[in-house]
């Protein structure tokens, strides 16, 4: 029988060792999984985790994938620090993509320099509107945000489908459920010729710096953490809960919306039914794996991007379904939650509960 013995204080070592352990356990499980599927385990792991980033183009693609994940995860981490269980980054990202597209299709034949910034701002607004609804429901109606955000995700997905089948469908697009291709003035500039790496990278670096300063240097960042750890203490100190909850949700929505705008005006270049392979959900894993800290999140986000790329690689070279990405994502989160137990508890293997109790 496993017995958990509470530690006198939380373990600083395991706080940081736990994510590393989780990744290692995932790799080991992955090796077994590949073996069970009749692949040579090491070779398969190499194809999955090394080959995608073996050249310069691969590395730039890693950042292309990481940008939307990171933008979502920085914002989610703020929410989780405030104990606001927002799992709606996916819906906020989709709304950002829709809002951005509404603006972008107005500029298809225009070369106004303002087209791109306005498109991005529209994306931010879209995400904020979606997160703002959740904030309103939580603050004014007492509605549990976990359930409301997940419902908002499904609503956003259906609104996206409605947009591409209806109002935003390209009139010259042979009836495909897609918007018109965006004009050059709307698209995010490419940073390195011959790659797809776009200005979104700068957005995510800015978000990294901004959220880091926000958490560690601002008074409101401090208030957020107090509220997240002890609601009663925050209330006693007179912190304004409404303001704090609204702040974290709007920042998260804005960043996720920007991620969506960056996708439609970046690598995709138009509004399509599938603008996100679940970036908003994987950002949840990234936020926890990165210990809710912007630097940790950046590392975890790059790993998550690699898992997405590895899925594509294993589809091409191993003939495995792309969905293996989701298997790895789930495994990482499970192993992380399991290893996190060691932060608060020691594990004792007790064959005789009486004896262990006496010890």
């Amino acid at each position, binding site marked *: 029988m*496993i017995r*958990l013995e509470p530690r006198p204080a939380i373990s600083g070592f395991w706080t940081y060792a736990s994510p590393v352990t989780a990744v290692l356990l995932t790799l080991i499980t992955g090796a077994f999984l590949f073996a069970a599927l009749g692949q040579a385990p090491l070779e398969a792991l190499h194809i999955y985790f090394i080959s995608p980033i073996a050249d310069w183009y691969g590395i730039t693609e890693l950042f292309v994938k990481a940008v939307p994940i990171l933008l979502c995860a920085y914002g989610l981490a703020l929410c989780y620090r405030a104990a606001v*269980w927002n*799992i709606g980054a996916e819906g906020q990202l989709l709304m950002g993509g829709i809002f951005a597209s509404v603006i972008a299709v107005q500029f298809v034949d225009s070369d106004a320099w303002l087209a791109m910034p306005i498109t991005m701002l529209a994306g931010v607004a879209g995400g904020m509107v979606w997160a703002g609804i959740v904030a309103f*429901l939580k603050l004014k*109606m*007492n*509605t*549990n945000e*976990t*359930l*409301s955000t*997940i*419902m*908002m995700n*499904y*609503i956003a997905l*259906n*609104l996206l*489908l*409605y947009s591409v*089948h*209806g109002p935003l469908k390209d009139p010259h697009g042979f009836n495909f459920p897609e918007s018109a291709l965006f004009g050059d003035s709307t698209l995010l500039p490419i940073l390195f010729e011959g790659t797809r790496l776009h200005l979104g990278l700068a957005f995510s670096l800015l978000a990294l710096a901004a959220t880091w300063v926000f958490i560690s240097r601002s008074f409101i960042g401090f208030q957020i953490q107090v509220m997240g750890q002890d609601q009663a203490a925050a209330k006693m100190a007179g912190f304004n809960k409404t303001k704090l909850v609204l702040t974290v949700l709007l920042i998260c929505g804005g960043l996720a919306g920007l991620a969506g705008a960056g996708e439609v005006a970046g690598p995709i270049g138009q509004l399509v039914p599938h603008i996100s392979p679940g970036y908003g*959900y994987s950002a*949840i*894993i990234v936020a*926890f794996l990165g210990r809710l800290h912007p630097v940790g999140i950046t590392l975890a986000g790059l790993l998550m991007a690699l898992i997405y790329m590895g899925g594509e690689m294993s589809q091409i070279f191993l003939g*495995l*379904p*792309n*969905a*293996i*990405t*989701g*298997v*790895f*994502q*789930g*495994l990482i*989160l*499970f192993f992380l*939650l*399991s290893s*996190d*137990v060691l932060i608060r*508890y020691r594990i004792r293997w007790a064959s005789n509960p009486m004896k262990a*109790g006496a010890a």
Partner: protein
Amino acid sequence: MDLDLLTNILYLTIRTGTPLLLVALGELVCEKSGVLNLGQEGMMLMGAVVGFIAAFYSGNVYLGFAMAACAGIAMSLVFGFVAVTLNANQVATGLALTIFGTGLSAFIGASFEGKTITALPTLAVGFVETIPLIGRPLFAQDAMVYFSWILFIAIYLFFKQGRGGLKVRAAGENPTVGSNLGLPVLKIRYLSIMFGGAMAGLAGGYLSLAYTPLWTENMTAGRGWIALALVVFASWRVGRIMLGAYLFGFASIMHLVLQGFGLSISSNLLATLPYVATIVVLVFLSKNIERLKQFEPMALGKPWHKTH
């Protein structure tokens, strides 16, 4: 609106509500024992894909349901180990279960997309089926619909009378006191979690073996999450679960209803209705949070381990 359409709407409301009823009953029992499992969606998807594959190879749709339940139980045991034995955060663990189940089901089901099976047959009782309006909705459904009714009554009685329901509730209200009185709290919680897993598996199986009958990635479309809201809607009372499940079933087939009135609205917009309805319901219930708290199992979602 003519009678045929009305009959059809009733018939489909019950069919659409059945997977919700199954998964919500399972989650209700699980929550009564004090465990909040947000992994319903993942367990349903695994039930749907495993059930479909089993039925595809064996040609036996009932075996498909048995395997769907087993898949749900297997998933729920993963949850139980992490959330109950290792005492991890139940919300995060449930979320992990959903992400894992979504990925794993898409992975093992990838080569079965587009394949077809023979759906679960309807069991007409004969002459009563011809009763206007209620005949077909009540007496010409498939075996799982009838099974869900039997189960509903069984769970109602389980909590209404007998020691079993009392033990589950004790584990969910105050596990420490229960444990001190000699109740095997962990065992009760594990069994409740496994029951929830079996129900979620069956609910998923209902989608891939009876409702659509085919497998597509992510085919549950949030029903596992709606079921979680249903339990709140029912304020943890069995009787109301059925009402809620059929109300949501009705909201999901709204396009048919509107068709009856000669209205045509984008199907994508109508598809948002069950989710909007869920939020609206949550809003109305949460307005009176004090009252809601009276019905919620007191230890719901709180990690607990035996200290001595």
